[in-house]
């Protein structure tokens, strides 16, 4: 099947006497903002031996990606090297002429980017892009390189390894594309690969496949790797050693196991803050929203079938499932953007009109929505004052001084202050933008908030902050949440009830504790078991388990492989 060999995890503690492959000493990188240059990497030391995997973790803005690119002797436009040295197998990349650095890239140092979809040229077939470097720069014959690429496709557990290369980038799924990019990086057998968040944009179930594939090839070819991510659990599966970075400085460095069992710094511990949150059980409450056998369709294509959900006052229902399972469609049906073709929705005892336009202002006010990407959900030309003030004026008729006072009170509620009032969204951080979206929803004084993947675009630390805020608001204002997510840690942190969805149908629903405790239906099991544990042996054990009772999962795996031209990113 997909996983044809259980990787025997021999941690090959790389020998210390050998000269390091990559050796950064006192690396300083500066970035330009306006006229001035400020330091973003403050004298970092980093060593990497042959065959070693080093994990770089930290929140966004920690300088991880900048360091990753520096390992190739490259600085982004607007950045420059201000000091230190980068020795790659004895050559200083910072003193090497541009041509020398270029000769190393692709052949001896390879790079795997976060968004595979953006990194491939959509106009060329995959195989041509995969072998290009090997043929043009590695001096290999095309036939030889193609055979090698196909071998790599097989090792990376890609379906139809002989012919998948003939497809175009849009004809394979996001997870497959990420593995093809890994094959592209491996085809020259580089000494060092830099993985920059290769699984961040993927579903948990797909992430497992990509992680397993990356780990097996890296071990097979004894390639050194820098693995950049903000998810400690992911890096724990691959890395021998982990460096925690913050604001361009090293916080802590230790072998993986030591780091997980006994982190020295509080900051390191806060990186898995979300995982430690857990919402306590609460008694039953009166029903606020009830959906009865609701079905929905885009044209002739049925996307939701027989959905019956009950949301109680002051409680949270989490809807989980991978992308394409109909979670977001469910939100569109409740808000009336996609009127259902079957069934009924009852809100606070009254039937809810199917279309947004048919609902009264009061009905609209009571259901508010928060989106996944705060960048897209905030008008770039509206200041914070306008964003929060508008629903106050629209629903509450507040004007002038009253409106100002209420806006400030809301800002205070989301732990922001009057200094943010006149800022535009582009002048706020990702977490602040999401808080503004929450304040905008709160301004309407809703009873139900639909949260569509509200934390998935954010760092772990910011995530924990937002989730705590949402929980606190729930107890203060007795809000109900419909929480759409694919992340089980988030579910634990916020949910009372869980609805598991797959392909537009409900697989299972019930109390959080019931659903999270075994036994599970096959799909729930797959979803739950795919969430990386904070344990370096988690992946090894999971793959061994799936191999052992491969029969039960074999049925659920192939049907997740996308049909041609139907890719969810």
């Amino acid at each position, binding site marked *: 099947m997909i996983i044809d060999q259980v990787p025997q995890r021999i941690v090959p503690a790389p020998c210390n006497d050998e000269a390091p492959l990559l050796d950064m000493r006192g690396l300083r990188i500066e970035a330009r903002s306006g006229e001035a240059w400020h330091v973003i990497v403050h004298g970092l030391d980093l060593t990497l031996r042959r065959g070693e995997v080093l994990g770089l973790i930290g929140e966004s803005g920690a300088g991880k990606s900048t360091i990753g690119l520096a390992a190739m002797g490259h600085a982004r436009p607007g950045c420059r090297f201000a000091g230190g040295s980068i020795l790659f197998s004895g050559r200083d990349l910072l003193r090497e002429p541009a041509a020398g650095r270029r000769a190393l890239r692709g052949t001896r140092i390879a790079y795997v980017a976060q968004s595979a979809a953006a990194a491939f040229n959509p106009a060329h077939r995959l195989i041509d892009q995969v072998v290009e470097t090997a043929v043009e720069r590695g001096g290999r014959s095309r036939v030889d390189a193609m055979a090698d690429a196909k071998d790599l496709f097989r090792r990376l557990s890609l379906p139809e390894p002989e012919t998948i290369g003939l497809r175009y980038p849009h004809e394979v799924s996001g997870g497959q594309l990420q593995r093809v990019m890994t094959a592209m990086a491996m085809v020259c057998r580089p000494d060092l690969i830099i993985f920059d968040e290769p699984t961040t944009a993927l579903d948990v179930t797909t992430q497992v496949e990509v992680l397993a594939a990356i780990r097996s090839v890296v071990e097979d070819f004894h390639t050194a790797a820098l693995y950049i991510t903000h998810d400690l659990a992911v890096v724990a599966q691959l890395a021998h050693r982990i460096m925690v970075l913050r604001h361009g400085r090293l916080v802590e460095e230790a072998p993986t196991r030591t780091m997980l069992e006994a982190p020295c710094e509080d900051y390191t511990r806060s990186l898995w803050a979300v995982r430690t949150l857990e919402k306590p059980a609460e008694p039953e409450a009166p029903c606020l929203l009830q959906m009865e056998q609701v079905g929905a369709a885009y044209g002739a294509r049925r996307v939701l079938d027989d959905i019956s959900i009950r949301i109680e006052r002051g409680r949270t229902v989490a809807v989980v499932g991978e992308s394409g399972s109909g979670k977001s469609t469910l939100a569109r049906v409740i*808000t*009336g*953007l996609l009127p259902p073709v079957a069934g009924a929705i009852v809100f606070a005892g009254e039937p809810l009109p199917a279309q*947004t336009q048919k*609902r009264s*202002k009061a009905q*609209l*006010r009571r259901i*508010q*929505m928060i*989106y996944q*990407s705060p960048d*897209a*959900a*905030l*008008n*770039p*030309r*509206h200041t914070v004052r306008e964003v929060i003030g*508008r*629903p106050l004026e*629209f*629903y509450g008729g507040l004007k002038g001084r009253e409106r100002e006072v209420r806006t400030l009170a809301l800002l205070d509620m989301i732990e922001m202050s009057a200094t943010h009032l006149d800022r535009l969204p*582009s002048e706020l951080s990702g977490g602040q933008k999401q808080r503004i979206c929450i304040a*905008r929803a709160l301004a*309407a004084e809703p009873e139900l908030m639909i949260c569509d993947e509200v934390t998935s675009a954010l760092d772990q630390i910011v995530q924990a902050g937002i989730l705590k805020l949402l929980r606190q608001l729930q107890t203060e204002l007795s809000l109900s949440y419909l929480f759409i997510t694919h992340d089980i840690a988030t579910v634990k942190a916020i949910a009372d009830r869980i609805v598991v969805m797959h392909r537009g149908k409900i697989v299972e629903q019930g109390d959080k504790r019931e659903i999270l405790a075994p036994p599970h239906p096959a799909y729930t099991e797959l979803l739950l078991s795919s969430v990386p544990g904070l344990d370096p042996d988690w992946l090894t054990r999971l793959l061994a388990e799936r191999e052992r009772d491969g029969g039960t999962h074999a049925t659920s795996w192939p049907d997740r492989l996308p049909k041609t031209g139907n890719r969810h990113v």
Partner: protein
Amino acid sequence: MQLWLKLMRAPLSAKLGMAIVAVNVACVVFAPWLAPFGETEIVGQSWVPGFWGADVQGAPATWLGTDHLGRDVLTRLIFGARNSIVIALVTTILSFSLGITTGLLAAAMRGWVDQILSRTVDLMMGFPTLIFALMVLAVIGSSIPAVIGVIALLDATRVFRITRAVATDIAAQDYVEVARLRGEGMGWIMRREILPNAITPLAAEFGLRFCFVFLFVATLSFIGLGVQPPAADWGSMVKENSAAISFGILMPLFPAAAIALLTVAINLIIDWTGATAGGVHDDH
């Protein structure tokens, strides 16, 4: 204050453009005081060359000479700026009001509203503009309001197309959906959510369209359907004096140069505003 700072930091090309536009605006506003003679005053013989024209007996000194009827060319140019620029400006503002309103409406409402508006525009764009204008003006007769109306309508179709294209993308954004879910009316969504985000490309388009209208009025005047004599207008000045070219007289080149100069100046300014607006978009 900020605007002034921004102007001071503008590149030389934009400053040059602004200077030329400023001279033109001064001509529009102060024409009767700036012009050495009356608009239709005959000051000498026809096609007297400038600068040394005073040597010709019985003629007062003129900077740029006289036209085919012996009127002062500089005076005609200054008064012509009035007609040409004001007509072009009014026409462009009209066409943008019409085009932006309908374009936003089509993008925000979709469905049959969009279909009707878009197909009507397609139909109008099916005719070559000049022929369409000639036809309409031949039917309703040529007058300044008619010229303005016809050109505004024709130009509005182009503005509609670009507004609709830009606004359709914006209308699909989550923040517009948020406004719809809040229950906002169509007016708010068009004016407050979509328009502010579409204004940059539309402003650039405004400058370009202004030049096109300017040239179009000149074209119509040139074939005798635009500004009617004896009123001065740069396009008709070229037309009336075109015969002089064959005698080696430079006079028709002056109004032609005025048209070219203003067009270039406006484009210099647009390039600069386009570049600064583009920079704002790039930095995130």
